[in-house]
């Protein structure tokens, strides 16, 4: 390829990348292919979501854990419950409290310091396992709600900047 004949005219720049005209049949076949692809994709995702079920749940509630306590045995899982007011007791190496569901209550023995928002009446997730009747854990995660309430709704700010 030493001597190349020059093209007679500049091809329009807009012709770059355009597809040559396709027959109606090929067009319909391509559309069908897209449709099949979409159906397969949606079906696969729907199947995954329906089969995943509870495996994506982050924790078991106290009631659920109590219902399948025998099955859980000594295996480690995350347990969620409400910190029962008055049950919180500091120990040498952590904190003991009672976690409540709607029907059941589980005493929790935690090793390690709880996070700063840990307090009575707040939902928490504890990581550990059953040991007899108590739940032995080594981590407390606070599972706060999506509700935001002013700390002192009745407070007013005086014009001089003081708060009462």
């Amino acid at each position: 390829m030493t001597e190349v004949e020059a093209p007679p005219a500049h091809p329009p720049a807009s012709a770059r990348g355009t597809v040559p005209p396709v027959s109606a049949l090929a067009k319909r076949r391509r559309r069908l292919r897209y449709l099949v692809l979409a159906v397969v994709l949606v079906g696969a995702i729907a199947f995954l979501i329906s089969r995943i079920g509870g495996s994506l749940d982050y924790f078991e509630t106290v009631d659920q854990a109590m219902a399948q306590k025998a099955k859980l045995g000594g295996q480690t899982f995350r347990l969620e419950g409400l910190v029962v007011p008055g049950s919180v007791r500091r120990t040498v190496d952590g904190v003991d409290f009672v976690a409540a569901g709607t029907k059941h209550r589980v005493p929790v023995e935690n090793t390690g310091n709880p996070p700063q928002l840990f307090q009575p009446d707040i939902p928490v997730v504890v990581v550990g396992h059953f040991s007899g009747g108590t739940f032995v854990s080594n981590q407390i995660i606070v599972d706060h709600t999506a509700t935001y309430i002013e700390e002192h709704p009745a407070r007013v700010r005086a014009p001089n900047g003081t708060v009462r």
Partner: protein
Amino acid sequence: MSAVTTWSARRAWVVRATGLAGVVGMAFTVWLGLWITPPDKVQGNLVRLVYLHPPVAWVALYLAFGLAVLGSLLWLWPRTRNDSWDRLAGAAMEVGVVFTALTLVTGSLWGRPTWGVWWAWDARLTSTALLLVLQLGYLALRRVASEPEPRARRCAIGAVIAAVDVPIVHFSVDWWRTLHQGATVLNANLSPTIHGAMAWTLLLGFVSMTLVFAWMVSVRYRIATLADVAADRSMQQALAERWAEGMPEAPVEEEGGVPAGVGP
């Protein structure tokens, strides 16, 4: 390609005003959020991140992805196919990546003091992390060397597939038990569980972040348009030079046939 090199004065003004309003709104949100609004009953001062994290997530999940999918679908639909839809999708997704990353960062910063952990592999957090990976994949797809049309098709299909994760992120807190709390504003019965000054500051945060996003996408879209024009011109120039090489007897037109030089 037509000469879409500059914005009309009116459009430039609108974009600039949007950006300015967004920045001023953000400044007001910061002021209200840090000094005026009261501490929360449970979270105390930690609640102040509520004025930042949900608005960022709102932009990342709904606005950026919504726009990217809209642009992609309009490009895929033969009747509305136009280069500008591809550019819009690319611009929205690129800005969206920043907001998704910020969602994860601000959420992590909020989770450490409130939950006690930086990260938890619950359904909401994991699906959001997956969203970031999908967006990065889309950006990689845009950079694969290709002709404009196959690239636009590939990207549009990629965006539509990635969008499957958006409803999963949104409903993850309802479908599964997650550490992440449920929706405060867009909850099932649409009654926001946030009160008084906190609610209004949150609303301002949403509006300001939306304006900032609109501004960023407009500017990014314009850069994409200019880049396309520049690429087209340099392509035409290169073609003209090759043709000139092939016809040594013909005089090389420097000014007339070749478009004005395009800066780097």
